[in-house]
């Protein structure tokens, strides 16, 4: 009964999201595009954080590499957009394999620090390798050509681009969800609870952590590939460590124990940012207060708290 209502609710939300371009202005289309892309970024992060229990502070590296990969392919090769996204995923998967190989052997704070350090290294490279990355200005001036698969889409139109993002994020979310629900996802949950006990079952915990890390990096790269054409630039800010904090905040805000938590977190994050910055510059101060409240009083995040509250009401 409960799941039926939730599935119904989800269907309504998705139908609403599809209908948005016909009922809302460009302003809201832009906001929703950003929410979806950052939601995917945060959901990819939550695979290693919420499910596997690894707090990475370098997730922006994969997001940023994804955005640079798409920008570079558009500038130099002018491939269809879908091919750009595949290159973004490949590049971030490769980077995640290298960083993950060196990081997953460490636990907790050491893992967090190492991923932070690697993230800063990638930032430094993007910032200083001017001939390829154009330094602090970033890569701009690229245009989207065709989509691929023979589809005739005007990607330059924000409404069309929004629909493309919605479709790709939805597919990616379903894939991520299936991964979380698989035996592999179950083992990740067990690793979060107690890695040692998992090794008693003859499973190599390090390998599982690495595979989760690479999957998370790959989907972050996909999100990065989607953000570059949206922002019309791939800049070092996307790789900065403060960008690595965003999925952490979004996942906690929405609820790390729920698959859709990071998407809810992303929506609240972007909406609050837009709303509060229209009144005051100190959006970070307000965000800080909200986060502190969440961590102290609502450990399960907004989605978790809402679901709990709803269960209570039903009783």
């Amino acid at each position, binding site marked *: 009964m409960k799941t039926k209502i939730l599935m119904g609710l989800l269907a309504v939300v998705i139908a609403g999201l599809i209908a948005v371009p016909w009922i809302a202005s460009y302003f809201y289309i832009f906001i929703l595009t950003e929410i979806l892309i950052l939601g995917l970024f945060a959901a990819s992060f939550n695979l290693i954080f919420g499910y596997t229990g690894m707090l990475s502070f370098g997730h922006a590296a994969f997001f940023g590499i994804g955005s640079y990969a798409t920008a570079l392919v558009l500038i130099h090769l002018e491939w269809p957009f879908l091919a750009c996204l595949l290159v973004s995923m490949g590049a971030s998967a490769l980077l995640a394999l290298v960083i993950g190989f060196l990081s997953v052997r460490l636990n907790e704070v050491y893992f967090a620090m190492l991923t932070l350090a690697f993230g800063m290294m990638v930032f430094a490279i993007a910032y200083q390798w001017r001939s390829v990355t154009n330094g602090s200005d970033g890569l701009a001036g690229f245009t989207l050509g065709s989509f691929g698969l023979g589809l005739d889409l005007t990607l330059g139109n924000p409404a069309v681009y929004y629909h493309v993002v919605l479709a790709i994020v939805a597919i990616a979310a379903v894939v991520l969800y299936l991964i979380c629900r698989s035996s592999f996802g179950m083992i990740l949950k*067990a690793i979060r609870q107690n890695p040692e006990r998992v090794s008693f079952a003859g499973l190599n915990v390090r390998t599982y952590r690495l595979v989760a890390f690479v999957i998370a990096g790959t989907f972050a790269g996909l999100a990065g590939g989607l953000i570059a054409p949206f922002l019309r630039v791939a800049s070092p800010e996307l790789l900065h460590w403060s960008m690595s904090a965003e999925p952490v905040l979004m996942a906690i805000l929405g609820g790390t124990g729920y698959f859709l938590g990071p998407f809810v977190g992303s929506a609240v994050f972007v909406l609050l940012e837009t709303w509060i910055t229209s009144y005051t510059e100190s959006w970070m101060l307000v965000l800080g207060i909200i986060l502190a409240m969440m961590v102290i009083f609502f450990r399960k995040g907004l989605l978790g708290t809402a679901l709990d509250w709803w269960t209570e009401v039903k009783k």
Partner: protein
Amino acid sequence: MILDVRNIQTFYGESQALQGVTLQLDEGETVCILGRNGAGKSTTLKSIMGLTPPRSGEVIFDGKPIHGLPAHKIARAGIGYVPEDRRIFPGLTVRENLDVAAYQRKGSAARWTVDGILDKYEMLGERADQDGATLSGGQQQMLAVARSLMIQPRLLLLDEPNEGLAPVIVQQIGELIDDLSKTTTILFTDQSVQFALKHARRAYILEKGQVVHEAPSDELRRDQATQDRFLSVA
């Protein structure tokens, strides 16, 4: 001989927990390690399992040296281990707790299967889809032991399987050990002499990280002097 532990010395930092422990198990035996708190019982099992690798000495399992291997490889070699805390994976159902451990052995012919266990042990079968965290202490212990069977162990290490459990549950754990000992080799630790001698065929007594006595259970049961010397709490 399935397990041959030769003179292992294990350290926690600078402090030496095992001062050269030697013990052997033949295939099919059920053997117990007795000793007071801090004698090195748990450390012996952890050293065999690779959790606190011995600094010197050898652990030979089934003819092959396993000391120095990581825990997951030792598990794959065929040693099941149920740690003292005996905790299950909360947040996973009873069935999922077993599935996690059965993952590695998927497909191969297995003596113990998830469905087989759930059929055989009603206590678990009835709660297959319940969150493991909702089980009682005794049920969690049953589940932890059942989980260790999923890797099809040829040797089972149980660390203080009775600790903190009610007498009626202790009896059930004893029955489980008797049942499993028909088909596999078991090495367990305990503080209760009565329980250990009832269910094990042979016992080692540890004191200060060394084996100080070794005897068949029947003999040790009658040997009140040794019991008093090494095991009584007073």
